């Protein structure tokens, strides 16, 4: 009898007949076990104290596709870890830098930001209240080493240094040396020279004018700033559609429309949202001038050949309305340190100094990535490789460079201006009407 009962019990268990109590006990034990494992994994053990979180977008991380960059990072990180006894915990965010910064800001506002993270330099002022002030910038680094625009970005309103800029870039006018003796400085000169070049069947003057940020940074802003225009006031309110700023912006739209209407610029520029979209045209041999970024040099040298490119192409300031008040847009990347732990903060400064910011770090990273160093003193180091155009880029960074406003409304202004410019180029809207639409859309 007993054996039969046991047998039945075994049988019923095999048929998954566990009691409700057993089921709940098992579930409870499982949940408790998982919770314990979680607590053990997240506890403030000694091991975690020695881990430093480091967040970057994929191309600046160990998950990049450029082997040379990845090897540089692997070696530099391993060397630093060995010397300092810390372990770097690499965190990779999304490739879209705008989205990556938006997420980081959200994390920072909730106190969940990693120990140190990469921030687009023009957006850095939005992070001032979340990043830690830096009294020491690391070995051999001083604020005075940096270009003036970079110093402004790194320092908050109270004069405290909040970030470490480690790369920069600049936009210029590329022109064909074999076709143009003296590059045009004013808009009138562009139009005059452009007509002659267009009559020879050339695409005289190209620039990005599509649905992406380069339309703003490489086309609109240098032309707008060269007239003294301002997009926002000090409080971050949009002022680009008022008074002299309005006039300056309408001038920009009219100038671009003239370029297209006179056949100097082809209408297809509305399909170019990035500077690199112009590479095909630049390499085709049919383009005489274009607005581009410093990073295009290495790309174009790969396409047309190093010597041929240098022989054919020169760089000059992006033409200004009056031919002298040049302006250009600069950008780059910054490291922000979020950890409140003083030891980790010190370790972060040391790590960033060794890999990206110090003399050796900045030279190494800028050489391998083809970036311009934001510390002017690095240009003079023999280890910094640069290229034939480096001196011109340095001059432009020093004299003409400005950064986009960090105001929250900027993204809306940029998006609406991209649409407005396309509308003016295709003849759908008049410059004034286009500007009014932008103003209405962003609440200016």
């Amino acid at each position, binding site marked *: *009898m007993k054996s039969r009962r046991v047998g039945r019990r075994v049988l019923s268990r095999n048929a998954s007949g566990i009691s409700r109590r057993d089921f709940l006990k098992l579930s409870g034990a499982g949940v408790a076990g998982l919770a314990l494992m979680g607590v053990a994994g997240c506890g403030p053990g000694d091991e975690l104290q020695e881990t430093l979180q480091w967040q970057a977008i994929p191309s600046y991380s160990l998950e990049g596709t450029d082997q040379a960059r990845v090897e540089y990072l692997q070696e530099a990180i391993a060397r630093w870890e060995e010397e300092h006894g810390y372990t770097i915990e690499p965190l990779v965010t999304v490739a879209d830098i705008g989205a990556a910064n938006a997420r980081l*800001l959200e994390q920072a506002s909730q106190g969940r930001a990693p120990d140190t993270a990469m921030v687009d330099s023009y957006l850095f002022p939005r992070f001032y209240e979340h990043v830690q002030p830096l009294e020491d910038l690391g070995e051999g680094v001083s604020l005075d080493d940096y270009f003036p625009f970079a110093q402004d970005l790194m320092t908050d309103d109270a004069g405290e240094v909040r970030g470490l800029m480690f790369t920069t870039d600049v936009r210029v006018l590329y022109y064909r040396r074999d076709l143009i003796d003296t590059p045009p400085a004013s808009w009138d000169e562009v139009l005059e020279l452009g007509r002659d070049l267009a009559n020879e069947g050339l695409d005289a003057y190209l620039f990005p004018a599509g649905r992406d940020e380069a339309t703003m940074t490489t086309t609109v802003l240098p032309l707008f700033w060269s007239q003294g225009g301002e997009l926002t006031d000090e409080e971050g309110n949009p002022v680009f559609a008022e008074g002299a700023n309005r006039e300056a912006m309408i001038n920009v739209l009219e100038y671009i429309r003239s370029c297209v209407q006179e056949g100097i610029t082809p*209408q*297809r520029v*509305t*399909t170019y949202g990035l500077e690199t979209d112009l590479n*095909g045209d630049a390499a085709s041999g049919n383009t005489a001038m274009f607005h581009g970024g410093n990073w295009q040099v290495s790309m174009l040298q790969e396409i047309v050949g190093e010597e041929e490119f240098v022989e054919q192409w020169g760089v000059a300031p992006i033409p200004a309305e009056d031919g002298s008040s040049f302006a250009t847009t600069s950008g780059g990347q910054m490291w922000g340190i979020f950890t409140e732990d003083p030891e980790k903060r010190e370790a972060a400064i040391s790590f960033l100094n060794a890999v990206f910011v110090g003399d050796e770090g900045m030279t190494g990273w800028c050489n391998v990535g083809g970036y311009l160093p934001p510390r002017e003193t690095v240009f003079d180091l023999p280890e910094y490789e640069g290229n034939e155009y480096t001196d011109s880029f340095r001059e432009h960074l020093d004299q003409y460079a400005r950064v986009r406003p960090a105001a929250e409304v900027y993204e809306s202004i940029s998006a609406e201006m991209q649409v*407005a410019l396309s509308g003016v*180029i295709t003849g759908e809207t008049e410059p004034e009407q286009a500007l009014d639409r932008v103003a209405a859309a962003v609440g200016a």
Partner: protein
Amino acid sequence: MEKVAEEKAASRWRPGDTPVPWLLPLALVLVLVFVYPILEILRLSFTDASLVRPEYAYTLESYITLLRSPDFLSTLRITFIFVFASVVFQVLLGFIIALVVDQGVRRGLRGTIVTRTAVLSAWAIPGVIIGIIWSILYEESAAGILNHLANLVGFGSIPFLSEPNTALASVTVANIWRGTAFSMILIYAGLQTLPEDVLEAAKIDGANAWQRLTRVMIPLLAPVLFITLIIVTIETFNTFDMVMALTGGGPGRGTEVIALSIYYQIFQQLNLGRGAAAAVMLLAVNMIITFVYLRYIERRQGIE
């Protein structure tokens, strides 16, 4: 004693007695990755939330601004033109290709498998790659393939992507090329289910090819065609990747479909509230179409 034990064992709860434990994991996953995000989007659509500001207020402003905005109405118009043209041609061309392949198979012609594979490859390629392929074809500089051909036959340069109207047509053509394969697969599968005897009977009764197609095959295929229409419509309303890669919505807002507009609102202008409101509208359109589909299925089941 034994009876009592048996009764006790029978009254003991087993996880297998009810489908709940087996459905629970799926239900949890659905709640986490489907229901919760939808509710969250719905909630955010009634706020002025930004992607970079933690604080926000509840308001109807997102919907009001959106519905008053001429840009959003233009986006809706562009989306409907894009969807209508895409769906009509995808289903029509899919039907023709499926019919041709089916006839080829029935007649034992060579090359039907190659044709099917070639058409299917368009469906298998990711939207972003299709966008890039077509942008190379549409390139307006001297390097552009289609423009080179147009120049050879004396048409001159065609502004495929830089003129708003031609750009919308160009994007729609690329989408038709992409989506035709999917329609073809569904309709081809439907053709395989047609009863041979009915087709044979129509032939014996003297119906010509056109009559057999319009009076026998199409009525029999109607349920498949209807389902294809619904699926293709929903898929086209949600199109984002290919347009993003091909034009980015430009020139101006000439090819900005609603899914792309949502992306720009949220990730470019960081306007979470307004982007969520636009997403809710797209969801509503898709839900209406799905509802029509479900009603149709119910009605058919009722008839059967």
